[in-house]
């Protein structure tokens, strides 16, 4: 490129020089006689050698013309040189193109991501090495296979499949669609994120769809192992707890067994301990499930007021014991489309916290406001409040405020963490305002209809 630039610069100078010479020579020729008179005129003498001067001018002109011719020739030569340099650039472009084509082929063939080309009906062409490995067949086997026949139907319903085909035929790009694929060697099914892009605008060939398959079989497998583990853990951990629960129940309710009141009281304590264990395991499993993203909400109509009353009923013994004045205010239609369990867990957590951390005789007020598209449920207490310096941590896992730990040793520090996760899962959020020794107000904001419903 530098050569080109220099060439252009030279050319411009040469053209300027030759034009100046030409103009100068024309001027000299036109005004030669007048110039001679001016130059040779001496006052009091006659002009004698005018003819000689004219000849000298002619010689000068010849010299100028020769110079001019030389300059023009140089300019023409430079111009030709410029042209030949241009020719060498286009040769370079061809080399570059070939090189990049070679690079592209190497990349396509050896990329760890499986690529293949496909026509409108799904016939495979040009699978790269990774695609051959992924599909588990030879080049010939793949070439005689239809891509659509490899997609497992149970995973993608018939309707989704026909929609997929229509999209491909109409050259609508498909991006990262998760699909289960049967390999040609009939071994274990594999999972891939499939993207299909059409090359229609650049080429009229029949195999115009570029398919990329990102292998996610390993991720799928580890996900399955984790879910299996959780299911097993939840089953195995709960079975012995159920045994304890039901045997104590049997002992406490059986009319056939005689027991002293002390034994009964101890059994009740064991029962309470066991219940706490069950609750803890349930919470831990829920936390793992939500973190793994395997907790799928189920949407039904939820009546918030019913949920609140139900929970207050459950907590009534505690409320009476601690002489807490509970007030419930609600306005508007209280029905939401939400996951019932999640909403219940959130409100349960907010209410138990309010009752637990409010001193004897305090107030707890529940105010629910329902608007056209959203609602808010406020739980205000006159409790111990959250220390200012700890307020930014209250939604973190296993966090318990320093003053809360002094009031009650019983608590997992998972309640608010879980509530926030649930609320966000349902398209809402939890906010709070707190002042130490005055009280705390938690606000649960939810849309009328959860986004996934």
């Amino acid at each position: 490129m530098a050569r080109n630039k220099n060439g252009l610069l030279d050319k411009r100078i040469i053209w300027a020089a030759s034009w100046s010479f030409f103009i100068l020579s024309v001027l000299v020729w036109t005004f030669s006689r007048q110039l001679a008179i001016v130059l040779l005129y001496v006052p009091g003498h006659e002009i004698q050698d005018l003819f000689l001067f004219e000849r000298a001018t002619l010689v000068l002109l010849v010299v100028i013309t020769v110079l001019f011719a030389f300059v023009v020739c140089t300019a023409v030569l430079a111009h030709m040189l410029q042209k030949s340099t241009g020719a060498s650039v286009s040769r370079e472009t061809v080399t570059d193109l070939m090189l990049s084509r070679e690079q592209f082929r190497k990349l396509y063939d050896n990329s760890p991501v499986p690529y293949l080309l496909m026509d409108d009906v799904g016939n495979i062409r040009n699978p790269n090495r990774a695609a051959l490995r992924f599909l588990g067949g030879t080049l010939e086997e793949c070439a005689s296979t239809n891509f659509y026949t490899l997609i497992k139907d149970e995973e993608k319903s018939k309707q989704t499949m026909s929609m997929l085909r229509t999209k491909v035929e109409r050259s609508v790009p498909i991006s990262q669609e998760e699909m289960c694929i049967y390999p040609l060697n009939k071994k274990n099914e594999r999972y891939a994120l499939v993207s299909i892009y059409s090359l229609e605008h650049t080429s009229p060939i029949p195999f115009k769809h570029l398919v990329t398959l990102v292998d996610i079989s390993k991720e799928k497998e580890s996900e399955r192992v984790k879910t299996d583990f959780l299911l097993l853990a939840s089953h195995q951990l709960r079975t012995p707890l159920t045994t304890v629960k039901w045997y104590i129940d049997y002992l406490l309710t059986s009319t056939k067994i005689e027991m002293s009141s002390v034994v009964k009281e101890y059994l009740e304590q064991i029962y309470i301990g066991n219940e706490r264990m069950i609750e803890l395991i349930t919470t831990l499993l829920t936390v793992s499930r939500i973190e793994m993203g395997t907790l799928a909400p189920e949407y039904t109509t939820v009546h918030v007021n019913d949920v609140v009353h139900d929970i207050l009923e459950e907590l009534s013994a505690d409320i009476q014991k601690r002489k807490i004045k509970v007030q419930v205010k609600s306005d508007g239609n209280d029905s939401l489309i939400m996951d019932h369990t999640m909403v219940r867990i959130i409100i349960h957590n907010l209410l138990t916290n309010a009752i637990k951390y409010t001193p004897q005789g305090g107030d707890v007020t529940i105010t629910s406001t329902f608007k056209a598209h959203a609602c808010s449920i406020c739980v205000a207490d006159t409790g111990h409040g959250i220390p200012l310096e700890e307020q930014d941590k209250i939604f973190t896992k296993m966090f318990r405020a320093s003053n809360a730990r002094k009031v009650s040793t019983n608590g997992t520090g998972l309640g608010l963490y879980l509530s926030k996760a649930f609320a966000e899962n349902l398209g809402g959020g939890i906010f709070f305002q707190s002042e130490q020794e005055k009280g705390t107000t938690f606000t649960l904001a939810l849309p009328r209809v959860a986004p996934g419903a």
Partner: protein
Amino acid sequence: MDSSKSVLIIDDEESLVSVLSRKFNDEGIATYTALNGRDGLDLALEKHPDIILLDIMMPEMDGFDVMRNLQEDEWGKTVPIILLTNSSSIDTVAKAVSSGMSEFLVKTDIRLDDVVKKVKSRFK
């Protein structure tokens, strides 16, 4: 003692089968017990109990398989089934509902007395 009513308990956890059986007997309800799905299915088809308490996760044949097999039997189609399980995961619940069962209970969530109440309410 009203022994005209009977319950079949199918669960692989022996201690739970034992306490449930004891409780039902105290209430005057006859019980049949099986510790795996296959034995449970055979016993059900042989004894025709009034209700079946069925665990889901069991070796050999799980609760869903037992239900599927019962569906193929003329009597089995009509018998009320209460599924008892300890995996309260929502997928399990969803699966249970889709296979048309009568009721679904999570063991850790229900007291022994309430199990008896549920069963009795099904007799009527």
